[in-house]
């Protein structure tokens, strides 16, 4: 199937030129860590992803995980691939040194994660979820739980899962009904969880489930949910996996995509009750989940980026090889020479580059917040980015992976080219880890209305600064970009004011326009990153840079200009729809559907 070329130089460019990686490391007081080291890390991750994970991607799709006798066997080849991933220490990248991690910045972890996701998304979900459980335990676990579980999870010896969803509790977690009953020094968990990603497999000797459940005395609703840790094998006195716990996968789903990722229905406590341990304090489960949400949600946004880049690479390859029609001199014409095909390819390329830069900017926001003692302002920026990265990038990934099929024409609709797989795999992204609607509501409600638009205004001010810098440049491209971008930022400011004025008095308004605001903010943030890319390119070109080279910089410049000409206008469109507050939406009654 399609080859994968890891975007090592592109990622390095963003880290070095847009994020200021060396400065960030200094702020984080990480000695010896600099862009050269980041480069070496990206290079090696690129090798493993392109040489080991990418070639397995198609096989994983064609040979899904299998369920039999309350156990799941993963797709062939994944166990060995996972072992290589673990042996080479990749699970330890961003984890703290105290528990065996390498303590590298989150932003580098994100750049590396893109490669895992692009090369084999179904597989890469597994370590992504382990990181989630590590974060939960780090933030809220007792010292005892940390000592028992963290080193093994960080080393990748065991994997972690997140057990939130139940048949009656999806987007609304208030309806969680799984119970936890005290039983000596532990709890007995009973209930059923569905859609549990990598809920079971044979790759590691133990699996650590993080589970939301209710204590007997729990208040109703979201304020009565607690977080538990439930190992597949209960640890013996030496901390090694011992007796089989009463938690089993009782079926797996047959899905549209990510066939290599077993999606399990997990039965907790069908027999004697699954042994679980409380994480943190009772009834705090939901707020605890929120502390991990930035990472998990941004991680899914990065999946959208990775899979879009993979689709782009495949589309370019096909467009070069596929010949249709003839030139005037009678020679055959590869379809890449047709402007409409190039429009599709450039939309993908420019979109991917904007997404990559935004994903790294948003991820670095967490590092900058850490470096600044978790200052409120820096943290607010991170929180503002999260629903945009998750919501916009996964929605955009739908279009971009679909364009790959379009470039392939009829052959794209045929499974054997593999173009369809990326499209099918991508379709889960706007659904899991909070649907697009959840992201949009989070953005408009918790991230904008709740603080009166302060965090958003601060972001818009930074954007205005970029627009001003572009417009003040003597470079004609920069001036054109600056004019277009300034207009988009003005629209954003007007939309923000409109929202703050009207949302309090109109009951359904924020819910009705949140999707357009999310998409508008996505395209705007993408434009911001492309504008900063253009500024960096101009500076490097003026300085006769010889790190990236003329060709690389020229491509970046044109891609940025394409964004300002063809993708940034989408921000204007979405802000336009938003402030128009389409009345038809309210008028069409529920029973008229």
């Amino acid at each position, binding site marked *: 199937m399609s080859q994968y070329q890891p975007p090592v*130089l592109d990622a390095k460019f963003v880290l070095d030129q847009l994020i200021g990686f060396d400065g960030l490391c200094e702020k984080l007081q990480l000695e*010896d860590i600099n862009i050269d*080291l980041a480069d070496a890390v990206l290079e090696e991750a690129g090798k493993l992803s392109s040489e080991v994970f990418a070639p397995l991607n198609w096989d994983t799709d064609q040979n899904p995980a299998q369920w039999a006798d309350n156990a799941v066997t993963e797709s062939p080849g994944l166990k060995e691939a996972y072992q290589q991933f673990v042996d080479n220490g990749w699970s330890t990248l961003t984890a703290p040194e105290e528990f065996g991690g390498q303590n590298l910045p989150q932003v580098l972890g994100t750049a590396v994660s893109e490669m895992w996701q692009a090369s084999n998304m179904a597989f890469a979900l597994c370590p992504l979820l382990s990181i989630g459980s590590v974060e939960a335990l780090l933030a809220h676990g007792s010292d005892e739980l940390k000592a028992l579980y963290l080193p093994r999870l960080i080393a990748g010896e065991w994997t972690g899962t997140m057990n939130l969803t139940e048949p009656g509790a999806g987007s609304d977690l208030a309806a969680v009904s799984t119970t936890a009953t005290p039983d000596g020094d532990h709890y007995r968990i009973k209930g059923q969880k569905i859609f549990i990603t990598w809920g079971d497999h044979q790759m590691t000797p133990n699996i650590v489930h993080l589970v939301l459940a209710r204590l007997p005395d729990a208040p109703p609703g979201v304020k009565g949910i607690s977080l538990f840790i439930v190992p597949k094998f209960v640890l013996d006195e030496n901390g090694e996996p011992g007796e089989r716990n009463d938690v089993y996968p009782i079926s797996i789903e047959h899905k549209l995509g990510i066939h290599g990722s077993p999606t399990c229905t997990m039965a907790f406590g069908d027999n004697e009750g699954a042994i679980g341990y409380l994480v943190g304090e009772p009834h705090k489960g939901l707020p605890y989940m929120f502390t991990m949400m930035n990472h998990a949600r941004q991680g899914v946004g990065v999946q959208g980026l990775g899979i879009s880049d993979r689709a782009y690479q495949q589309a370019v390859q096909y467009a070069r090889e596929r010949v249709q029609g003839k030139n005037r001199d009678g020679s055959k014409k590869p379809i890449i020479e047709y402007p409409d095909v190039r429009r599709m390819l450039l939309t993908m390329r420019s979109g991917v580059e904007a997404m990559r830069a935004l994903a790294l900017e948003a991820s670095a926001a967490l590092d900058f917040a850490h470096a600044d003692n978790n200052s409120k302002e820096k943290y607010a920026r991170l929180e503002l980015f999260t629903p945009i990265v998750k919501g916009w990038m996964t929605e955009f990934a739908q279009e971009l992976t679909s364009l790959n099929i379009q470039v392939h024409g009829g052959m794209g609709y045929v499974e054997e080219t593999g173009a369809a797989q990326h499209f099918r795999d991508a379709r889960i992204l706007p659904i899991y880890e909070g649907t697009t609607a959840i992201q949009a509501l989070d953005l408009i409600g918790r991230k904008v209305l709740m603080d009166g638009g302060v965090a958003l205004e601060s972001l818009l001010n930074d954007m205005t600064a970029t627009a001003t810098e572009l417009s003040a440049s003597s470079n004609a491209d920069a001036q054109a970009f600056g004019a277009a971008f300034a207009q988009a930022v003005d629209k954003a400011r007007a939309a923000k004011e409109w929202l703050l004025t009207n949302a309090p008095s109109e009951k359904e308004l924020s819910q009705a326009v949140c999707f357009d605001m999310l998409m508008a903010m996505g395209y705007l943030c993408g434009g911001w990153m492309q504008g900063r890319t253009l500024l960096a390119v101009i500076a490097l070109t003026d300085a006769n840079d010889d790190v990236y080279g003329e060709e690389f910089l020229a491509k970046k410049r044109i891609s940025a200009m394409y964004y300002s000409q063809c993708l940034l206008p989408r921000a204007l469109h979405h802000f336009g729809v938003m402030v128009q507050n389409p009345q038809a939406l309210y008028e069409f009654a529920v029973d008229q559907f």
Partner: protein
Amino acid sequence: MKILVPVKRVIDYNVKVRIKQDGSDVDLSNTKMSINPFCEIAVEEALRLREAGTASEVIAVCIGPKIVKEQILAALAMGADRAIRIDVEEQPEPLVIARLLAKVAEQEDAGLIMMGKQAIDSDNNQVGQMLAGIMGRPQGTFASVVKIEGDEALVTREVDGGLQTVALKLPAIVTADLRLNEPRFTKLPDIMKAKRKPIAETTAADLGVEVTSTQQQLSVAAPATRQAGIKVASVDELVDKLKNEAKVI
């Protein structure tokens, strides 16, 4: 036993080579550079010998300006214990390289010099043989299997007629062929550790070697582009063309 592994910085094997406009040389500006793949195989073999307990230390040696530190770090990240950089401005000729390596091998008292059979940039395939000559030590070139038994190295060589196994008295020079092994993926913690491993620096003058040049590169040209073929209607026409046009039969 110490193993010395020479490592060369070359254009990455994935990169399409460009020629400078004036035809004076290959254009290496903003080009991805890597460890020569044959050198990488040599590093891997040395590491395996160390891991098997046969060797005590693996020393990477690299000849070139400061920038070659990238390749030195890559070799250290793979697992070499330490490195030596011999500072020279330009890439010396094979004979000079062999003389420099001979001095280092002597200083380090290396029991085995494990190196690539050639570098993929200039494809000389000379240094290993010259080094053996200069040092007066046995050589096992184009190795596909290397075994150390006592004070001997048993080297299976890939020769035209098949495989030949030779026994070399150590210290010896072994040059790696493609099938000797498959180099490992570098581990993340090892990338981090590589920065803290010692890199000694020396010069040709320190080693008492004069960097001379007996060759001059006159021009570099890309291979001629292949002409489009033609279809022939019959075997007779083909034979006719081969006989009268191509004049090959």
